[in-house]
């Protein structure tokens, strides 16, 4: 489904601030894989997702989605394969547009946009049903501006938007990090549900090791711009936080240095 071959990316090349963010990422996801990604500060977790989404071109390597080489495609051209939810609830929605307009925008991801109506009556009915299933009361506020919603509501809406048109791959970039624990748990639960329902292939960056263990069928750990640990299935299900800390020390030779991660245990 998704193949990353030897992905390399450096920022501020040739300056004193040069930062080699990705140092040869190798990863192959199977259809329906739900991978959680953990790692220390600056390990390259979010950078990997940005490389897949095409926020900037990579320096080296190839990105293959469903057999197609997308390495040379710009962000908006790649969008048809990818659904994304961001850390900042502000990023994933258009605040000054209505809830239903945001959904209509997402329903046309990767399609040619012409002079047909931006939202049809039938769509409105469909969105009403979908919003109802979120159980947040949004179905009665379809013409409200998204800017009026809370962070949790916005993330739930963004999840719906990202999966409205089934993506080849769903990228969740610490999408619960800005939410309070209770809301975060709800949004995670919703993520699980949507991924299972649509049999999606997904990657989720998180700083919460318990979440990383609890969710998904596969876990990878990154350090210094590389994948250093990769488990799936039975073996992954049996992991504990202590196992992960030991694994990290073995694989990287240093203690895990993610301040937020240690706090959230």
């Amino acid at each position, binding site marked *: 489904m998704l193949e990353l071959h030897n992905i390399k990316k450096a920022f501020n090349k040739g300056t004193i601030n040069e930062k080699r963010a990705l140092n040869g990422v190798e990863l192959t996801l199977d259809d329906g894989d739900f991978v959680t990604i953990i790692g220390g500060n600056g390990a390259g977790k979010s950078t990997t997702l940005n490389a897949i989404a095409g926020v900037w071109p990579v320096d080296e390597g190839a990105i293959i989605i469903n057999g197609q080489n997308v390495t040379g495609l710009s*962000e*908006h051209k790649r*969008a048809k394969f990818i659904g994304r939810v961001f850390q900042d609830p502000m990023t994933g929605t258009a605040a000054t547009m209505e809830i239903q307009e945001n959904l209509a925008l997402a329903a*046309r991801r990767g399609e040619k946009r*012409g002079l*047909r109506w*931006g939202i049809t009556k039938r769509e409105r009915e469909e969105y009403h049903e979908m919003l109802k299933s979120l159980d947040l009361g949004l179905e009665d506020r379809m013409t409200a501006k998204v800017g009026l919603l809370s962070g949790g509501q916005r993330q739930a809406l963004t999840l719906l938007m990202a999966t409205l048109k089934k993506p080849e791959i769903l990228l969740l970039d610490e999408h619960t990090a800005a939410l309070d624990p209770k809301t975060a748990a709800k949004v995670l639960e919703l993520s699980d549900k949507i991924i299972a329902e649509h049999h999606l292939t997904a990657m989720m960056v998180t700083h919460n090791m318990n979440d990383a263990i609890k969710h998904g069928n596969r876990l990878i750990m990154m350090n210094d711009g590389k994948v250093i640990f990769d488990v799936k299935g039975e073996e992954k299900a049996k992991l504990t936080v202590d196992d992960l800390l030991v694994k990290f020390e073995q694989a990287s030779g240093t203690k895990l240095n993610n301040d937020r991660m240690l706090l959230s245990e």
Partner: protein
Amino acid sequence: MELFLSKLSTFGNAIPGDITQGLIWGVLAIGVFITYKILDFADLTVDGSLGLGGVVAVVLITNGVPVPLAMFIAFLAGCAAGFVTAFFNTALGIPGILSGILTQLALYSVYLDINGKANAPVSVDKYPLVLSSRFVTAGNASADIIKTVGTALIFVVCIIAILYWFFGTEYGMAIRATGCNSNLSKAEGINTKRTTIVTLVISNGLVGLSGALLAQYQGFADVNMGRGAIVIGLASVIIGMVLGEVILRKHFNFIAKLSFTALGAIIYFVVLRIVMLIGLSTDNTKLFSAVIVAVFLAVPYLQKQSRASFAKAGKRSEESLGAGKESV
């Protein structure tokens, strides 16, 4: 008292002309609304594309081209100006404001290349112009006055209708999304460079059309006719938005925003007339527009500041602590 009455009658006679002028500038203001409010792009091309539209229309009309066709070509000339600014910004990476300034400056020369000199007259006696200031002054029959104001109104209404439709289409919605959140737009597969180009082209096309109407109305195009146009456009948008928020509140929807932008332009010219009757000299009209924009931009900010002010918080704290504990 007599002086007051005579001024009142001057004002009454001038109103139809001011409304017409307001509607013509309303077309420009709607163009400014599209870039400034929808795309979130401060486009200064406007100062150049207004004069360009004016001179293109006048030169074509005086060379025998039918008036509607001349106006359409003036619209296209404005579109081209918008495209140049968009090219500077999206293809060459020049910041938006600077891109507009560059085009605006270049258009000054383009104007002189087209016309050869600063002033380009066009007489309503010789050519079938769509409107003229000649027919909205005191001595005119009311049928003429209504026809002139009506013509300008029809242009504004048609433009609002077309834009209302356009921004409800898939592509129009993509433009609105680009202005609101360009990161999201790219993630949804929108080519944000292209939406920026299309918006600037449409906006400046409208400004070019406004220039064509204005040149006919005043009977000439002038190389300086667009100087400060962006400020008048912004003033109209801001007046319209403030009024709309106050009057319509929750019901201030998209079509109302377009309409109130044109209304803002009318109010601008009516208020300008009033302050001129009171004694503002014509030399000071630009000062007036600058002050209007500054005031309308400042008021919401100052209101917010006064609601959340440290000085007031300090006073409240003194009150709650009781006497004897004054703030530092």
